């Protein structure tokens, strides 16, 4: 019997695809699915199983393994760059992550707060000065995280159109293999040149410091590529989805505006219910492993249906409900295990500053089109919204 094709379309923006829920509610919560690559992979769907898998060294992150789960028919272009930290297993992974994670500590992120606040203020000023309705995605969601990651890495923001279009191509499910390879090559060449300039003329930014620490420029290149792509669209999508959710819940928005202590718990809940990077936690078994009564054989591909796990009723009370004061932080929206998102504390802070500032400064902000007609991204590997028209009243 052939395994059914993996379903990736959401019927409701804040619920997993129906098929994932169905798998989760089977006796084992584990099923086989056929990926777009033609590979048959085990799909895990319960929080407990996914946390176990992502902390078990018998599952590898080596994307060059022929059985590593793929969402494309062709193999990714491994010849273009060295593997980045997300592709490394222990013992190589630990030292590589520790060489950069000092750049993303909670304290370092707090140090960025004044500059991020300034960036958010300037973009809200510009939106208020422009025509109504405005597209929130272009006015705020995309440029804020984009500018922040550029400044942190030391990538000139004037080039952001270039890598914006290239990262969109990389994250699209509809781009051709050739188009994807071309986007990777152009982005790599751009970053390679930038890193060569920094090597010749040391700069006090993340990439400059990586070079100053004596890291190989080829490894710094892979890191730069990873951080630029990962720091770009993910936070942007959460800003858009979060703003839409809040605007649809005026009572809770009013409570949030009254009490900024509500913002961080609300962000955790939004991260959980949307789980925008729901397919980012794939592995390949390197030994036989038993999970939930199912034996996964060495060499078999495994997929974590993180969105289903984040709506798992055995882990969250009334899991289908959005409860902005839930306060649950055991979700896997940023993954779990040694590869958990490096930039998660930056993302939380960007979301906090954007929500607090936007709703305080524009109390009359509203959607200019009904929420259920918004163009949700069912065509991308990272969930989000393409465009969010918003409008507001003149201040009285």
């Amino acid at each position, binding site marked *: 019997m052939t395994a059914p094709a993996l379903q990736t379309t959401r019927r409701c923006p804040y619920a997993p695809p129906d098929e994932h829920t169905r798998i989760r509610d089977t006796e084992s919560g584990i099923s086989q699915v056929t990926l777009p690559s033609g590979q048959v992979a085990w799909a895990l769907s319960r929080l407990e199983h996914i946390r176990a898998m*992502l*902390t078990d060294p018998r599952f590898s992150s080596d994307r060059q393994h022929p059985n590593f789960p793929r969402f494309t028919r062709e193999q990714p272009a491994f010849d273009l760059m060295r593997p980045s930290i997300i592709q490394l297993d222990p013992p190589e992974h*630990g030292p590589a*992550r*520790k*060489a950069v*994670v*000092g750049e*993303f*500590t*909670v*304290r*370092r992120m707090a140090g960025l707060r004044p500059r991020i606040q300034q960036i958010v203020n300037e973009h809200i000023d510009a939106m208020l000065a422009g025509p109504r309705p405005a597209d929130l995605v272009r006015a705020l969601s995309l440029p804020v995280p984009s500018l922040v990651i550029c400044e942190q890495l030391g990538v000139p923001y004037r080039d952001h159109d270039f890598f914006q279009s290239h990262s969109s191509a990389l994250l699209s499910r509809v781009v051709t293999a050739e188009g994807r390879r071309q986007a990777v090559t152009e982005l790599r060449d751009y970053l390679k040149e930038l890193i060569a300039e920094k090597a010749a003329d040391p700069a006090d930014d993340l990439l400059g410091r990586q070079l100053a620490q004596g890291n190989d420029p080829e490894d710094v290149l892979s890191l730069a590529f990873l951080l630029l792509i990962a720091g770009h669209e993910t936070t942007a999508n959460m800003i858009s989805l979060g703003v839409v959710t809040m605007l649809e819940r005026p009572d809770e928005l009013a409570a949030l505006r009254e009490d900024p202590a509500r913002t961080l718990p609300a962000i955790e809940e939004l991260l959980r219910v949307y789980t925008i990077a729901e397919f980012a936690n794939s592995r390949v078994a390197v030994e036989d492993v038993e999970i939930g009564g199912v034996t996964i054989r060495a060499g078999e591909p495994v997929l974590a249906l993180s969105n289903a796990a984040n709506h798992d009723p055995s882990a969250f009370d009334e899991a289908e409900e959005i409860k902005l004061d839930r306060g649950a*932080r*055991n979700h896997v929206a940023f*993954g*779990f*295990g*040694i590869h*958990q*998102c490096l930039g*998660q*504390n930056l993302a*939380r802070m960007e979301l906090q500053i954007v929500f607090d500032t936007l709703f305080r400064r524009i109390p009359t902000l509203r959607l200019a089109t009904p929420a259920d007609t918004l163009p949700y991204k069912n065509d991308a590997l990272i969930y989000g919204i393409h465009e969010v028209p918003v409008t507001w009243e003149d201040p009285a």
Partner: protein
Amino acid sequence: MTKIAADLDRCVGSGQCVLTNPDAFDQSDEDGTVVLLQDTPADDEALKRARIAVEICPSRALSLTE
């Protein structure tokens, strides 16, 4: 007495413990790994937070011992 233990070899510097209780946990500026500021939770609230930190630590670097 409940004590918190941290395994620096396992720690990957996600900072989730710091977000959970900044009075009890900090991170090394150099490699992001956990620095225990209090190895014994001072009160029930600190103990509750320590349990959360253990549960959400992505690399299972934290543990509680009785």
